[in-house]
């Protein structure tokens, strides 16, 4: 009797804890049985390659949301980063200042630096003037898009070296998509930071209760600035990958990506109120979105319908999280 009770208890705990994994498993199983061509190595790797661009940013966004903030400007950062890399490379190379190989490295460095500066500005406005990041980054979304459009006018495309293409479209060992490698590396780094370092502990504390964190001697402003810079640098990196994939930079890149990025984080169980979330959950969220998208493509669902499905999915995930949180609080109160 007693052991049975314990077993039942464990199962409910388990199912609650791994709910998203279970749902994802069911969807994958269903697609395996019904969708022709879903469960092939090529298609699975294809899913990973497709989600890598938003996925890389999602891990940074996980830190930001756990830290109690948000960044809506990452889509425009992709565009600006791609344009900036291409433009700087072109400008340096065409005038013969630097050889192509070095010029593209400088271009990439400029983009990453740009991401760090944008994140720094966001963080400064947030911590110095106490403006919500929601509105700062919404404004930044427009500023960066405009900057990308201005900069790209005239010469968005440039001749880029072959190895640059490898960053966005190459294959490791002849089969493994390179963007997926970036995804896994970013996952590993952010996972280590959030679970094993002092900084990770501070992010959770700051997101859970900034005032208590401050009164515990944690430098709240520094933590917020660093996470806002991290997500921007990752967005710039994502822009580099994208520009390498298509071998050009354009201001139309990355539009609406912030939605996919935030969706992955939320589906992964991170609370929009801060303080709660797991990096692993975001990985699940990314794969989840990728699988759903892929499944819909295999079934020939149109792009417009996909938008609706994705929107509904985000709503469902938030609803599910909120209900779970409320039932947890209710259980504690009683």
């Amino acid at each position, binding site marked *: 009797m007693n052991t049975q009770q314990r077993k039942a208890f464990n199962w409910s705990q388990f199912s609650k804890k791994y709910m998203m994994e279970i749902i994802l498993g069911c969807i994958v199983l269903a697609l395996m049985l019904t969708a022709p061509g879903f469960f092939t190595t090529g298609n699975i790797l294809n899913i990973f390659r497709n989600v890598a661009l938003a996925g890389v940013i999602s891990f940074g966004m996980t830190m930001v949301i756990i830290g109690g903030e948000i960044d809506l400007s990452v889509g425009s950062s992709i565009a600006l980063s791609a344009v900036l890399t291409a433009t700087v490379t072109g400008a340096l190379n065409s005038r013969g200042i630097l050889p192509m190989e070095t010029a593209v490295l400088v271009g990439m460095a400029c983009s990453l630096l740009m991401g760090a500066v944008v994140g720094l500005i966001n963080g400064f406005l947030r911590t110095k003037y106490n403006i919500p990041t929601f509105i700062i980054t919404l404004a930044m979304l427009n500023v960066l898009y405009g900057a990308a459009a201005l900069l790209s006018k005239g010469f968005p495309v440039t001749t880029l070296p072959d190895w640059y293409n490898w960053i966005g479209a190459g294959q490791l060992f002849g089969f493994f998509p390179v963007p997926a490698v970036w995804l896994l590396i970013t996952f590993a780094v952010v996972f280590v930071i959030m679970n094993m370092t*002092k900084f990770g502990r501070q992010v959770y*504390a700051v997101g859970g209760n900034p*005032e*208590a964190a*401050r009164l515990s*001697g944690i430098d709240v402003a520094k933590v917020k600035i660093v996470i806002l810079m991290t997500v921007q640098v990752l967005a710039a990196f994502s822009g580099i990958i994208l520009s390498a994939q298509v071998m050009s930079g354009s201001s139309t890149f990355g539009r609406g990506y912030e939605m996919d990025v935030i969706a992955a984080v939320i589906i992964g169980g991170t609370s929009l109120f801060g*303080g709660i979330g797991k990096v692993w959950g975001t990985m699940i969220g990314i794969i989840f979105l990728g699988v759903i998208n892929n499944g819909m493509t295999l079934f020939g669902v149109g792009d417009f319908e996909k938008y609706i499905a994705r929107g509904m999915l985000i709503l469902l995930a938030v609803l599910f999280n909120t209900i779970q949180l409320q039932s947890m609080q209710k259980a504690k109160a009683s």
Partner: protein
Amino acid sequence: MSSLTVRNIIKNFPGTRALDDVSITFESGKVNALLGKNGSGKSTLVKVINGAYQADSGVIELDGVPLEFGGPQDAFDQGIATVYQEMSLIPGLSVAENILIGRYETNGPFVDWKKTYAKAQSLLDEMGIDMPVRELVVNLSVWQCQVVEIAKAMSCRPRVIFLDEPTSALAQHETQMLFRLIRELKTKDVIIIYITHRLQELWEIADTSTVLLDGRLTGKIDMADAQPKDILKLMFGDVTIKNRPADLIVSDETVLEVKNLTRKPWFRNVSFTLKKGEVLGIAGMLGSGRTELLRAIFGADQADEGSIVLDGKVIDKPNPRIMSQLGLALTPEDRKSQGLVQILSIKENLCHASLDLLAPTGFVDTKLEQRYADRQVDALHIKTPGTDMPMTSLSGGNQQKVVVGKWLNIGPKVIFLDEPSRGIDVNAKQQIFQIIWDQSRKGVSSVVVSSELEELLEVCHRIIIMRQGEFVDVICPEDTTIEELYSHCIGSEK
């Protein structure tokens, strides 16, 4: 004339009887003061009468008619109004809009502003209040807001009105203006029940005083023939103050020195020294600046002037990071919103102040982290099945111990404890005292702020009395009584 009578009210909370067979009558045409120290049951009584709580047994009668409430709204509809200390006004709306909120004069689907303002004006005139009805509440001073609150409550023509500490946030001259309004209310047919901490006000404004102690009615006296000592006697009963252990030695070594610290408008020119191993109390009423003083020394807020010397180092611009690195700890007044991250685990909370020690390279030593958590759970007797449990699974007393444990993990030199015993049970309280004394034996000094004066007398070596932002006296617990200390704090001595 009307009267409100409560008979044989009993109200139990888990573990305590908050009201024990209380029977009183309040009459209109008078200001009836309701007194009692923290935890005496006076707020519970107010909440039973205004419908926020349901009494376990007993009757409430208004002019001999028994009242039954389904909730606060129901009680309000039956004529019981309460003006709380915390303002309920909407700053962006005008005086008239606030007073008549939800009851505007309308013309079809539209608000008739002309009539609404006229109605508000006539209400204010009736009470002899001179205030521009079109002014936004955000532009009013605190006492004017308090007046608007009262006008708002009175506009519903209540039979009973509770005024909960209406003067606690007011300066002297503002108090006088508020009193003028309260005296005006006496001429209306309304039963006024006035709750206050400020004893010296009683002779000025109250006609009768009803005193509660430990959930029982200890007396009701006419202010005309009451002496301060009579009221103090009723409020405190016969208290036996327990002595602190004899082996707590204060060394000669100064660990903290504060000179002329000022942060307007909360406190001015505060100076004191704290010795190694000393337990120093700061006594004072709510709003005397005690919490703000601790926060300013800890660097949570910026002081305007003055100097702080901690452990021989002059600290120019204190902030919580610097101060905690130097060994100063603060357990804040409101542990839920300032002391703890409720959604995280006990372990994480116990380690928040000591992350520098746990991760000198940036990577957290998880074994050490677990040891840090375990050692506080053991030493402070934190009752929990495991350190991975969420903070919310703990009782108030155990949560408070986590806040203290978080700081003990940095090996502090000085601990500031702001209301350490608020909302925790008697046993946990004693355990917290024990922790303070244990630390004193190890040479760690403490500064304790508490509204419970008997606690300060029990725990501290020395008590500084703070009144309206200034240090007015220093006393030794051995040479004083609780009544003396209390009248000192409220400034009605001699």
